[in-house]
């Protein structure tokens, strides 16, 4: 699966360009990260039981998405810095 996805991603890159991909699909990731952080804080505010169950679930989902967030930011920065 991970070997198939880069082919689909490179097709999308060649079709749309890096800026367009990170400004559309990338924005979905950024919104997800922001939304999940918000949800985590709401869960924390509701009480210890919700904090344990929901916040920990969100933590699991957040960890790989934060990795994606870092990759998107790095891509954008390198695209600006590199000729």
């Amino acid at each position, binding site marked *: *699966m*991970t*070997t*198939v*996805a*880069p*082919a*689909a*991603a*490179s*097709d*999308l*890159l060649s*079709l*749309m360009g*890096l800026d367009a*991909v*990170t400004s*559309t*699909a*990338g924005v*979905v*990731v950024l*919104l*997800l990260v922001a*939304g*999940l952080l918000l*949800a985590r804080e709401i*869960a924390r505010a509701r009480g210890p039981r*919700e904090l344990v*169950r*929901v916040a*920990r*679930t*969100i*933590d*699991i*989902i957040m*960890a*790989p*998405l934060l*990795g*994606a967030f870092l*990759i*998107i930011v*790095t*891509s954008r920065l*390198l*695209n600006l810095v*590199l000729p």
Partner: protein
Amino acid sequence: MTATGADLGRRLGRELRDLDPRAAWRMSPRQWAAANPGFVVFGGAILGAELLTAFGFGVAAVAVNGLVLVGLVVLAALVEDEPILGSLIALAMVAIERIISIAAPLPFGGEMLPIATTGACILLGVAMAAPRLGLSRQALGLRAGNPRALLLVGLAGIPLGLLGALLFGSFPAVEPGALAFVGSVVTLFLFAALVEELVFRGLFPAVVVRAGGDERTGILAGTAFWIAALLPTLSAPYIALMIPTGIWFAAVRLKTGSVLGTTLARGVMLVIMVTLPAAVAG
């Protein structure tokens, strides 16, 4: 050897922790699907997103997978049953894998780096999910078992790789140089083969069993998602090869209880598929 009171206490604690009122009976795949409508609905949405990816609507696929993640979090907040939560987290890993692979492109580092970054993110997710869900390494299929059987299963990757290279030409290319080759081999074994097997034939059966299902149900569900994830190749001969391969991998996982043999086979297969076309051409 005499067991001390502390040893007995620890053993009792472990047994109580593993005690599952549903362990005495296991639901059939149909019963389990009927008892877990959330899994079926969100699983169907993920399969739909794979079709969108296959037909070139990558951004739409990312959006659908994003909505699935939001839905899974809402459902996780509503679900009281901890084991059901585990099956939702397994589905989330599939959605996240597709989101990262499409939405986080790297315009440098060749074609192997995106495989490594996507795989590393998912490994991190599984590493965080396993202790949260109380899944041991054995439950995830990370056990050596019989080394001879493991090696024999791994060797099956050679004919599979040759067939794959023959049927599916356009595969990620390896950069020239010995270091790049070693890096590619490590990437394919660790971040492609191991991640695939750990998620689809490790995490899925483990969480389904925890949620009262049969191990068969989990392996079948994981293998179905694994095959669906190959749809974006749009290569009918390659998918036709991978369907029986996936079923065989599922049978091996069921028989040996380990994902290491199939990881070895998938890794060998991928390395051959990546290197053989370049070797023949050049």
